[in-house]
């Protein structure tokens, strides 16, 4: 009787997890236009002036002609951890485009860890976050050479946006 009970509960838990997994996969397959608003600067329009100024300061002339990738990250998000681990270990190909990390109010330790990656970093006090309407992280945005938002995606795969 006990074995049957345990098996029943196990099957129930496994089925629940499988259902949740299927729902997640379905939502990931939906085009970004029908998903919920993920925030970020509007695609095809000029990025907020404050962001462009900060990027100019972070990467200078390096971004001219090639555009720049911007990754908005926070300390506690799982996908951000994965993104940071991948880009700091060079596991993602960015097609030669410079990457800039934007962290919102990073703790001292997080800031130090970000600086150790040698990837240009902007420590934001909330203004950039607000201007860029960041609602989810990690938000990866590609800004073209004219300062327009060419593409954006909430993903840990920076190379998917590069």
């Amino acid at each position, binding site marked *: 009787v006990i074995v049957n009970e345990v098996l029943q509960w196990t099957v129930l838990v496994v089925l629940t997890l499988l259902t949740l997994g299927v729902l997640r996969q379905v939502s990931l397959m939906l085009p970004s236009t029908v998903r919920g608003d993920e925030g970020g600067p509007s695609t095809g329009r000029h990025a907020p002036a404050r962001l462009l100024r900060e990027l*100019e300061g972070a990467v200078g002339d390096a971004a001219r002609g090639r555009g720049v990738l911007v990754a908005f990250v926070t300390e506690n998000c799982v996908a951000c951890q994965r993104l940071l681990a991948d880009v700091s270990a060079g596991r993602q190909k960015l097609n030669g485009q410079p990457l800039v990390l934007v962290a919102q109010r990073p703790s001292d330790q997080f800031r130090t*860890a970000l600086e150790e990656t040698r990837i240009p970093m902007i420590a934001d006090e909330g203004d950039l976050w607000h201007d860029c309407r960041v609602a989810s992280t990690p938000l990866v945005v590609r800004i073209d050479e004219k300062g327009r938002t060419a593409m954006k995606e909430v993903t840990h795969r920076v190379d998917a946006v590069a």
Partner: protein
Amino acid sequence: MLTMSVVEGARWALTAVFVLSAVEKGQTLWARSAAWHPLMLVSPTRRRYATALMSAALIADLAVIVLLAVLPAIGGPAAGALVAAYTWLALPVHSRGAGSCRCLWKLLDSKTRLALLGRNVVLFALALAVTLSWSSTAGVAGFAYGAGLLVGLAALVAGLDARPGSPATTQRQASPGRGERASGDELADAAYATPSPRGGTL
């Protein structure tokens, strides 16, 4: 009889908590991102040996899960010791304002020092109960009690995190699997970015 069922429930609850803990660590190790876990960002030494430390902790979690199932007389004290050790390791995360210790796969995550302490004191008490009066049979009778204990624990953590004035009330909330999503208030407050009038370029 009721007491034994509650103790069995404590055993189920502790086992579930350590399963969550192991899943959290396994997922982080799988993504090769141990060095970026909030618990590892606390000090350069932890960061340097993050993968080894997290692997060791994962093995300890798995050992406690097995011991709680087959040898609760040892599993109880081992669980208590591990809870105490994790509490000591996680406290600095909240004192440096990181927001969350990212413990227990977000399901029983604490966003404030008080919630962390409250949750872990309860877990320690459960481990103590298992140690003092464990049952040799792994009965299913306590399963419902275990589920009840976990729900109560989740409510306690949520309540402590949501106290007025708590920093957690301004933290970003989880969007499972895809990162973090801002709270409804933050979204409502967020105005659409106004394009630069002069169309600034890089």
